[in-house]
């Protein structure tokens, strides 16, 4: 068994947990139990969990995007934070003030995303910048995720360029799932490969097939390690396909069958299972047990959040300011 076998097994279990959670979220949405949207990362678990699993909560920074349930779990987000936010529990980190994937615990190195793509690159850069000013940066890494569509934003450009200028340990994972909502790559960018952007920004570049579980673990951990060792920003591009619509309201009918049935359309959980079994890192029975355990844990987290109080508009503190003096004055 390779020396990182425990880590590889852990990443796969996190992927299983994520898939089970997302299937449950989808059911709850379709049953009308979740308001707003549900945005899933089916098919992107391998890269997402690989990245999250290489980071240390409380030390590193991880700013996930909408398809990073697996990465969130791998970075140590509790299942309750997920279910409480989706189900609008007043006890969750967002307390009903924000929902679904817009959740986080910034003081634990886990910023809560806004919907505007690319904005997290500079925010994570700033967190690393501050750690450097405080003399606490050594050995730490910040990571964030984006999609193919997000690379077209000005914020992506400004953020990555700034991180490169400052030579900060920022890992940017681009999940190129071929479609930004319905827009295909050829209407999104004109370069041959998104990885070419690394050259332009003066940062290291890495490529991986996102459905290849073992390759994803290896590539992401290598990129994170390079950043940790002082190698500056790392751009990781993963080609894959999201195996669901943009959100659960969308059937993804715009994805041609040809792509669905290509190598891109493989399910990283199937590929990973095969890889684990064939390399004897896990047995079929073990993996089945992981699924069973995940179902129980997810159900528990859903049940708990469902029984909790919802936010009360009569008790809500309707102020967006932290400073008590300003809050007490009329707006």
């Amino acid at each position: 068994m390779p020396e990182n076998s425990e880590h590889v097994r852990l990443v796969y279990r996190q992927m299983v947990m994520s898939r089970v959670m997302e299937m449950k979220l989808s059911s709850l949405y379709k049953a009308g139990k979740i308001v707003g949207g549900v945005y899933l990362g089916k098919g992107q678990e391998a890269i997402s969990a690989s990245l999250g699993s290489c980071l240390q909560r409380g030390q590193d920074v991880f700013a996930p995007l909408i398809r990073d349930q697996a990465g969130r779990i791998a970075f140590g987000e509790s299942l309750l934070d997920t279910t409480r936010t989706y189900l609008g529990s007043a006890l969750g980190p967002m307390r009903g003030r924000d929902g679904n994937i817009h959740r986080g615990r910034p003081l634990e190195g886990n910023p809560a995303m806004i919907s505007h793509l690319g904005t997290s690159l500079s925010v994570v850069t700033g967190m690393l910048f501050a750690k450097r000013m405080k003399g606490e940066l050594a050995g730490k890494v910040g990571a964030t995720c984006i999609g193919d569509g997000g690379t077209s934003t000005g914020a992506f450009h400004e953020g990555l360029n700034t991180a490169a200028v400052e030579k900060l340990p920022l890992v940017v994972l681009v999940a190129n799932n071929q479609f930004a909502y319905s827009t295909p790559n050829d209407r999104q960018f004109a370069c041959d490969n998104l990885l070419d952007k690394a050259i332009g920004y003066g940062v290291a570049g890495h490529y991986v097939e996102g459905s290849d579980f073992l390759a994803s673990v290896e590539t992401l951990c290598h990129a994170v390690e390079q950043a940790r060792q002082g190698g500056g920003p790392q751009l990781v591009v993963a080609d894959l396909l999201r195996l669901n619509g943009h959100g659960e309201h969308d059937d993804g009918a715009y994805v041609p069958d040809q792509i669905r049935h290509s190598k891109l359309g493989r399910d990283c959980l199937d590929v990973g299972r095969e890889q684990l079994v064939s390399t004897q890192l896990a047995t079929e029975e073990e993996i089945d047990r992981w699924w069973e355990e995940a179902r129980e844990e997810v159900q528990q987290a859903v049940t708990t959040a469902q029984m909790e109080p919802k936010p009360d508009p009569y008790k809500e503190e309707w102020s967006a300011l932290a400073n008590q003096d300003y809050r007490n004055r009329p707006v």
Partner: protein
Amino acid sequence: MPAAPSITYIDAIRDAQRDLLAEHPEVFVYGQDVGKFGGAFKATQGLQEAFPSQVYDSPISEDAMIGLAIGAAIEGMHPIVEMQFADFSSVAFNQIVNQAATHYYRTGVPIPLTVRMPCGGTPGSGPFHSQMVESIYSHYPGLVVVTPATVADAYCLLKEAVLAKDPVIYCEHKFLYRWLKAENYRGDDLPIGKARITRPGKHATVVTYSAMVHEAVRAADRLSEEGWEIEVVDLRTVKPLDTDTVMASVARTGRLLALGEAFPWGGVTAEVVARVVQDGFHLLDAPPQRLNSRDTPVPYHPNLWAAHRPTPESICDKLRQLLTL
């Protein structure tokens, strides 16, 4: 013989930053050309030399400048971002209103960020180096917006802004940078959120802020020759807005002119009038009036620029009209 006033408005801004950097290691300055060069207007001159680990040049990336500052603020720092011109903050608008302004409400983690906005016109600056931004940012929950009009306020409001927990849009008027002088920074040290009566009067109230305070005082001087006593209220902070001081003044005078340099649609002057009408309709002896810039981009030529923003003449005209209504 007392020394001639020699401390300028921009000196106050520079010295407030110097004092903050010296006293608070969590404060840092970030922006385009703010380092060795000392900033486009020299508002950070000498600061990098004195505090090399707290003053940094940024790329021309307004979005990322604010994003970086937000990240640093999450980590407990108190960043001061200099927008080279307030106009360019439109590029950072998203990070300011969607990331910084929503952060505390959403997550419970405050963002003690100050954005210095060199705003307002000077002759020849044209459409993209002259804009006022206080109205647009005041619209968003989660932001504090200050508009100092005096040397002492430039100093004390900046110090309070940077140490405050919330994101503060600090609007510094470029026209005042070198023209406005004082002997020292000592003022009444009113906090953020408190307006000041700059000039007492009894026939009408002008509620204004930033450089327009001085234009209003000039207009009031002229009208005093005609026997009118005009009260000038300097809001100092447009959000939170000190409605109490405004209302008390209108209660004394019965007439209101809300005066600002921003574009006329909506904004601070409309907000002032709306509040007075809503809560103090019975105090009014005449319909409240507004005077703003014209509803065009800020023009380049000094002749056009001077007529685009309110002037002592146009303020006097408006006040005479108000006084006879």
